[in-house]
């Protein structure tokens, strides 16, 4: 055990990145989509249209190679886009799972055929993606995957059930983790297979979350046919590919999330100013503490992206981003509702909506307990503990 590096590099933007920022900002100002529809289904459709237009303007997949429809730039450009997108009224890409997670994983682990078949349609959201990882018996213990893939020549026949599958109901493709070696256990014998959500064996059943919104689903797989050619990283290498995909979930995503939280803090600050409470010491302390923690979240996000860009991202390090994000997000909305008082707390509004929604952050993409396990094992080198 010894001292870690100090100071660590964080993302720094060059003049060309700032030029890109200017271009995006100008375009956004002229094309601001306006607030999204409140009805959930309509909102999704509006988001698909928004990504299509963003792609038309050349802003989606900035860090992707040009041959896959990207702009051939680097992660700095991607960060600039995320930051500018987060400042709009529709701050996210509907196919973010495709663009930021499945796409890069195919580029890292997949082959040229898969890249050509699937990458371009991710960018304009003509094909949305979802991630088929969790199962009823494989939540935090992801290696307990039971869904089976029976290899028959060049086909794989898949049976099983996935759960908590975000956006499965609007997805055309699913990167699905299944057990393709019948006698295998735990992390071995798994494969990450691309399945077509229009296959007649796929049944998607909504699982409304606690806000009543249809974010995630149960997915039943009944003799679903996929192709061996569509296994990302080859048969039996599913665990490594899936872990890579999860680490992508904690890179740009955290940066984007941080900007949205900063906007929420701005709103809270403005509300306190409007009430004439901005000189109140308790208000200042609470808001100052949140502001400082959000600044650290941004610094950590920039650090992760700099490491990712340099190909030096340490295994397990993005758990820091995820854990800090969940802490700040939950604290922010709890503090907001508390500062704004019963009138806000007792009505359904965006503050109380986000307060409820914030409970999901410490569960999705690896719960807080799993992140703590990863940090203690991979970053501190402590032995296994459960």
């Amino acid at each position, binding site marked *: 055990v010894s001292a870690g590096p100090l100071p660590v590099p964080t993302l720094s933007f060059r003049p060309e990145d700032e030029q890109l920022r200017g271009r995006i900002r100008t375009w956004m100002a002229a094309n601001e989509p306006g607030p999204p529809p409140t009805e959930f289904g309509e909102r999704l459709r509006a988001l698909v249209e928004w990504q299509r237009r963003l792609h038309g303007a050349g802003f989606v997949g900035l860090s992707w190679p040009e041959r896959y429809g990207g702009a051939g730039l680097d992660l700095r450009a991607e960060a600039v886009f995320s930051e500018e997108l987060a400042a709009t009224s529709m701050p996210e890409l509907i196919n973010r799972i495709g663009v930021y997670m499945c796409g890069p994983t195919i580029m890292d682990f997949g082959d040229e055929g898969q890249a050509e078949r699937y990458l371009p349609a991710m960018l304009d959201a003509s094909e949305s993606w979802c991630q088929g990882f969790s199962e009823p018996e494989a939540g935090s213990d992801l290696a307990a995957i039971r869904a089976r893939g029976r290899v028959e020549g060049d086909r794989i026949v898949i049976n099983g059930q996935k759960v908590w599958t975000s956006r499965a109901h609007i997805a055309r493709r699913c990167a699905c983790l299944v057990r393709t070696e019948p006698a295998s256990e735990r992390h071995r014998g798994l494969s990450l297979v691309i399945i077509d959500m229009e296959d007649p064996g796929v049944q998607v059943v909504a699982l409304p979350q606690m806000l009543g919104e249809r974010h995630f689903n149960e997915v039943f797989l009944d003799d679903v046919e996929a192709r061996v050619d569509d296994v990302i990283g080859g048969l039996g290498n599913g665990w490594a590919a899936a872990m890579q995909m999860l680490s992508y979930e904690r890179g740009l995503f955290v940066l984007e999330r941080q900007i949205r939280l900063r906007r929420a803090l701005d709103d809270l600050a403005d509300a306190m100013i409007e009430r004439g409470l901005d000189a109140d*010491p308790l208000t*200042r*302390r609470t808001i100052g503490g949140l502001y400082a923690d959000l600044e650290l979240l941004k610094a950590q996000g920039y650090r992760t992206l700099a490491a990712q860009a340099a190909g030096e991202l340490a295994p397990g390090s993005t758990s820091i981003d995820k854990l800090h994000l969940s802490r700040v997000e939950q604290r922010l909305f709890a503090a907001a509702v508390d500062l704004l008082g019963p009138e806000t707390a007792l009505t359904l509004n965006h503050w109380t909506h986000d307060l409820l929604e914030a409970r999901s952050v410490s569960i999705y993409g690896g719960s807080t307990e799993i992140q703590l396990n990863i*940090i203690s094992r991979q970053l501190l080198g402590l032995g296994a503990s459960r």
Partner: protein
Amino acid sequence: MSALALTEGEELARSLDESLAKILDTETLLASAGSDEALAASTTATIVELGVHGVAVTESAGGLGLNLGDRARLAAVFGRRLVPAALRDECFGLAPALAALAAEGSEAAAELLGRAVEGELRGAVALTPRPAPGTLDPTAIAASAANCEALVVLGQDRLELYGLEEGGAALTPLAGLDPGQGLSRVSLGEASPLASIAGAAAPGLRRDYELALICEAFGCGERTLEVSVEYAGQREQFGRPIAAFQAVAHLLAEIKLGIETSRAGIGRFVDLAGEEGASGTALDGWAATLAHTVPAAARRACEGAIQVHGGIGFSWELGLHLSYRRILAVQYLLGGDGPTAELVGAEYLTKRSER
């Protein structure tokens, strides 16, 4: 990382860390704390011989000409090894302040500078509390060695040098939380400064000194985490190392979270400061954020270390209290947990209301 891949600055930090570890062993530090007396002159002289007084001074002024990143790294080493606070202040506060004053034409400072860089001048540094205007708060506390000759006051937008020889500015020793560090109450009385700087250079020097304190707390906190991880891997209870218990492992992981976000924050500050046209206001904002978050994370690390060590952690002889006292001292020299949050909040809310 292999030794071959180390930069010059990293190599310097590594060798300083090794040397200091030998000089400042726990027994030596405990003896000084126990009697509330500074380290023996011979021990201090050994540290001075390492050339530490030149770390924050430009080459033209006789120092090492290190960049901000290297200075941050060395300040963290000071924290890891619990270098006496008075030495820290001479290296990261007094010497660079004298260099700046000398560059502005102060003969008094120029006369003292050479001795300061050689480590032959004893002097103290007082930081005025942030939200106050440029004048010194009469309750300011500074660390000082015996026979102090000079006092530098780092105000919000003003830097002043005082002599301590005749009546006027004075340092009155007090029973400090961090014993053996010469913590003293500062009073300026009717003294007038020997030299001063008002304007852009002053906040920069203040910020650099604050960053040194912040990095010192960071290094100190990170070290206590290392010690805890090692101990948790060795100490057995219920037939296995306590690190195998999730309650312990997760406590250490929580500490790691604070240390790593602090590391990222310091990295961000250094990167921002290196950018062309970096604004002083933006850097002040970052420094305030770090002054609030980093000592707090270091404090949690040390409190966790004491907890993980159990009874032995609370003992005098293990010495974790030395780290704890130092981190607390830094946290409160920078204003304290609540007040620093309040300052960050006040600045942010003011900016919002001016929109």
